[in-house]
């Protein structure tokens, strides 16, 4: 059967496809074909505009797919176990020189298809293709597959995400077990702690997926976190190592998993939701930029000052005047006799002085703030998170109040958002006021889209003067 394709003249992207029979018998399609051929069109792939190119090919009808049993792929051909021929890798060898441990030397020791990386270095662009999911009975989220743009080197690579325990702590024994599984079934390569807060095991052939996942679950780990669900959450190290944390981030994340594990493993939302939990406004997990739901530890009262410690810090050479001038609210005052004082009205609780001066600690009235809508990609590009709840008490062990609120938030998102719309895009579309009504939050002056600079500056009548009337 002869096939007629209309392709972009620049990049070759197929825009419409017909068979010769269709063009002869269906007048609607013939008309459309003629219309497209004579008109200047915009290619959705490379955005070039111009006349389309016509290409004709005779293709045999593909055979019926065999009855599929067990694991099967939706987007690509099943990834089989493959041996990679040894070939010269001059660019990778160059990266292996020098005193620092080299990633290329490590990759070469494993079954990773090194030619993919070598070609990428030579052509200065990645040789991997789009991603997708392989459905696997028993794993509702499916398994990620990374397709290859160079099928002659490798057919693609499946990888599973393994949820790590809170604090990203692995016992050495458990790690050995994971390493054995990676050696046995995969490339023999672990991607330790991706930016999403999980562990990725790369390059599992499709026929090995089932035994590999079975062995991983036998070790006590869970796989999942792909598709339109809660992705694995990430928290800062919190009370396990840090002295500034304002709530127990590790316990919070553990309780979060206890409550929302079903939503992590069974995709049901319009798009992915990423959660990050930071212990204090320093935000070491970058939740304000990256997370759809960001829970940040905050304090309501003023930072505590240990005057004796501050005085000894100044005596030892601390530059207190610099700190006072750089205070974002301009609220720090240093007097050699009276000591350090804070103006409560203009203090932003930004942690700057606490980070810089020894002897200053966060206040005692502690809780969490909930911010929504941060993201790096999505329809409208990067967005910073917006404050939805400025203060809420986090009460262990089950943090019921906070999680009830998060559940209400996701229900609203689930009910009203369109398909494949991130929470930030959804907020932009309906507006923050509408969202407040849907979630049931009273708008208050304590909610800010950005850190406060001069939002509530009180203008004196003498300061207001019309420039035109001199």
């Amino acid at each position, binding site marked *: 059967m002869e096939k007629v394709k209309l392709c972009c003249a620049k990049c070759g992207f197929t825009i419409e496809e017909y068979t010769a029979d269709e063009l002869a018998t269906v007048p609607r399609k013939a008309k459309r074909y003629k219309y497209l051929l004579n008109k200047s069109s915009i290619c959705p792939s490379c955005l070039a505009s111009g006349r389309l190119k016509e290409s004709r090919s005779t293709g045999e*009808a*593909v055979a019926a*797919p065999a009855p*599929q049993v067990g694991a099967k792929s939706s987007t690509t051909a099943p990834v089989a176990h493959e041996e990679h021929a040894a070939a010269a890798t001059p660019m990778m060898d160059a990266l292996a020189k020098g005193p620092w441990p080299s990633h290329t030397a490590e990759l070469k020791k494993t079954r990773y298809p090194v030619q993919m990386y070598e070609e990428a270095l030579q052509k200065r662009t990645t040789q991997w293709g789009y991603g997708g999911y392989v*459905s696997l009975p028993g794993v509702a989220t499916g398994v990620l597959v990374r397709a290859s743009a160079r099928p002659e080197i490798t057919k693609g690579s499946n990888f599973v995400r393994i949820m790590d325990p809170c604090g990203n702590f692995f016992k050495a024994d458990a790690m050995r077990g994971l390493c054995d599984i990676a050696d046995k079934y995969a490339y023999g390569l672990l991607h330790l702690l991706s930016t999403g807060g999980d562990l990725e095991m790369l390059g599992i052939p499709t026929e090995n997926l089932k035994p590999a996942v079975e062995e991983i679950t036998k070790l006590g780990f869970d796989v999942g976190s792909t598709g339109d669900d809660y992705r694995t959450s990430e928290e800062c190290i919190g009370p396990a190592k840090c002295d500034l944390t304002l709530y127990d981030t590790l316990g919070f994340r553990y309780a979060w998993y206890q409550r929302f594990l*079903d939503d992590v493993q*069974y995709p049901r939302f*319009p798009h992915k939701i990423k959660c990050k939990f930071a212990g204090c406004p320093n935000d070491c997990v970058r939740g304000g930029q990256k997370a759809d739901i960001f829970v940040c530890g905050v304090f309501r009262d003023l930072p505590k000052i240990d005057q004796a410690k501050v005085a000894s810090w100044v005596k030892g050479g601390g530059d207190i005047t610099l700190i006072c001038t750089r205070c974002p609210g301009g609220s720090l005052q240093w007097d050699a006799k009276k000591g350090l004082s804070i103006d409560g009205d203009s203090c932003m609780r930004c942690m700057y002085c606490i980070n810089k001066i020894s002897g200053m600690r966060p206040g005692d009235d502690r809780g969490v703030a909930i911010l929504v809508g941060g993201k790096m990609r999505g329809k409208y590009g990067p967005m910073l998170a917006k404050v939805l709840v400025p203060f809420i008490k986090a009460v262990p062990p089950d943090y019921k109040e906070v999680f009830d609120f998060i559940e209400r938030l996701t229900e609203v998102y689930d009910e009203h958002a369109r*398909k494949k719309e991130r929470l930030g895009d959804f907020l932009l579309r309906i507006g923050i006021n509408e969202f407040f009504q849907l979630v049931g939050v009273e708008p208050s002056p304590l909610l800010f889209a950005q850190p406060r600079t001069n939002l509530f500056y009180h203008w004196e009548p003498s300061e207001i003067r019309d420039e035109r009337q001199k």
Partner: protein
Amino acid sequence: MATIELAGKQFDVDEDGFIQDTAQWNDDVARAFAEQEGIVELTEEHWKVIRFLRSYYLEFGVAPMIRKLCKETGFQLKYIYQLFPTGPAKGACKLAGLPKPTGCV
């Protein structure tokens, strides 16, 4: 176009095995797909999901969102995954004779 033989009849299918012409569907097709998917027996609860998916598709022309499916049938998402091991999109929609859903249902 690939074809597949189910219950003694020929059907056009896409690369994932979803039948192309929804009108050709009948109960026997669902039973034949169930065997492929590894479902032992189609119970009344399976049929409830399948009938809802079909009626929604015939009315609106698209597969329903997962939230809608759970709400209308009254099943938890987890239970639907127990009924159809490959999930609502690849399992249930295939049995119901719908074309392949574009999103993740």
